[in-house]
């Protein structure tokens, strides 16, 4: 039962058919993040007007689906909207399953609500989002201060 909360159809779908995967040029900022405990890796590239976000990585279904959802949610939005989405996602992930996600803001990312109940997997879901934030900063765009990751 618990597993169904983690492996939502939406997550498995993004994992098997990722959106926007593959590194593309041109870009203004790039960040490579790793999860040293499990070896998952992701590289995210950001164009400063967010007309494209590209990524490539190695990892589990949760981290890879999370990257796909991030791409889908964020491409074409402005910095203020992105900051709101980013903050909502981090809050959801750190909510230990107690936070009700707002589908208006988070779209497919609401499917990750179940992941928050698995502390060992929260880092997987956050990996692309933290890499994105770094890449955006390197592109000269501040997407808001999100709380420190305490997974």
């Amino acid at each position, binding site marked *: 039962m*618990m597993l169904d909360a983690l*492996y939502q159809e939406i997550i498995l779908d993004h994992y098997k058919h990722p959106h926007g995967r593959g590194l593309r040029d041109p870009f203004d900022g790039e960040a490579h993040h790793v999860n040293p405990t499990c*070896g998952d890796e992701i590289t995210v590239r950001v164009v400063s007007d967010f007309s494209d976000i590209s990524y490539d990585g*190695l*990892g589990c*279904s949760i981290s*890879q689906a999370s990257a796909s959802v991030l791409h889908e949610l964020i491409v074409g939005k402005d910095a203020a909207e992105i900051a709101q989405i980013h903050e909502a996602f981090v809050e959801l992930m750190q909510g230990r399953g107690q936070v009700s996600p707002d589908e208006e803001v988070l779209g497919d990312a609401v499917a990750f609500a179940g992941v928050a109940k*698995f502390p060992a997997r929260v880092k997987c879901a956050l990996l692309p989002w933290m890499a994105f934030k770094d890449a955006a900063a390197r592109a000269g765009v501040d997407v808001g201060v999100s709380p420190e990751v305490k997974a």
Partner: protein
Amino acid sequence: MTFDVARIRADFPILGREVNGHPLAYLDSGATSQKPVQVLDAVRAHNERHNANVSRSVHTLGTEATTAYEGARAKVAAFINAGTPDEIVFTKNSTEAINLVAYSLGQHLKLGPGDEIVISEMEHHSNIVPWQLLCERTGATLRWFGITDEGRLDESALDELVNERTRVVALVQVSNVLGTINDVSRIAARARQVGALVLLDSSQAVPHLPVDVRELGVDFIAFTGHKMLAPTGIGVLWGRFELLAKMPPFLGGGSMIETVTMGGTTYAAPPARFEAGTPPIAEAVGLGAAVDYLTALGMAEVHQHEQDITAYALKALADVPGVRVVGPLTPEGRGGTVSFAVDGVHPHDVGQILDAQGVQVRVGHHCAKPTCVRFGVPALTRASFYLYTTTEEVDALVRGLDQVRKVFG
């Protein structure tokens, strides 16, 4: 006497619990073993009845604690057939033991540019990083053995790799990923020929098979208590006494001195020289009890049981679609550690779904990233067995893998 797994399991209270509504199938003994009541009781009895600091008290409790601590040292010495208990240095784990040798032996050998240290691609990070650090400090060069496609040490370049410039050879005795048992006799002989010293990382060997340091013909071995039924926080370095006696201290502090003045210090003889500060006393007592438990069962019998379970598991996994075992495919010359990839499914996801069935396996790079890279995978799922593992637990693993296919199919 037959090896009675049911009776052994009765000694391990944790094996009776459930996980996520299923009977626990603990297949992660390579990470840490479970502890029998005999060990848990020994630690509790020590703390309840004999607790005091060691090696510095004239009072009764201090004497009892010292006797227990030194008694554990003697048991460990006998267990691996060391020449004397003074060749047993208690550390906090294998990692500390290897760092101790890298630091103190590195000093003693006065390593510098032109000297070479040889390790292998099969090592745990704990037998890579200390040597990399030593090379950075001294300018020595790090070299390594590769791994064959079958998961064995590639000794084809032995005479070139271990040469007159080689000062230390540090190798894993049993791989924590591939399960390979390395017969190091040829390498040790070559090292002796060129005057190099040999250290074995025996973390996955001493808990699982008979280890006789005099037969091995090496200079140091490192292993850890928590993988052999004992508590965490107690590890062992065995070294040939004449070498230990020449090596400078690793950590400085109480208990490792002969005399201290404000102008300088002289050091105690080994093993005290390498045991600065209050050691893990109750943990050492627990290790002594673990050694008693293993000795009573017989290490040859423990190894045989794991061989039987491994043969069963290798056969069962060969029949699971999409599963590829990395490492030797037959039980000969391998231990009870079986790592595998599942087509199209990341090990994290495999581990998560197995956990939902009560099956506890390790996933990830197993602190051996170069080994994973050698086999072209970022991570693996690993099932590792011990003296309490049953074929039913292997069956639960196989059923769990069917479930993995259902979720990700």
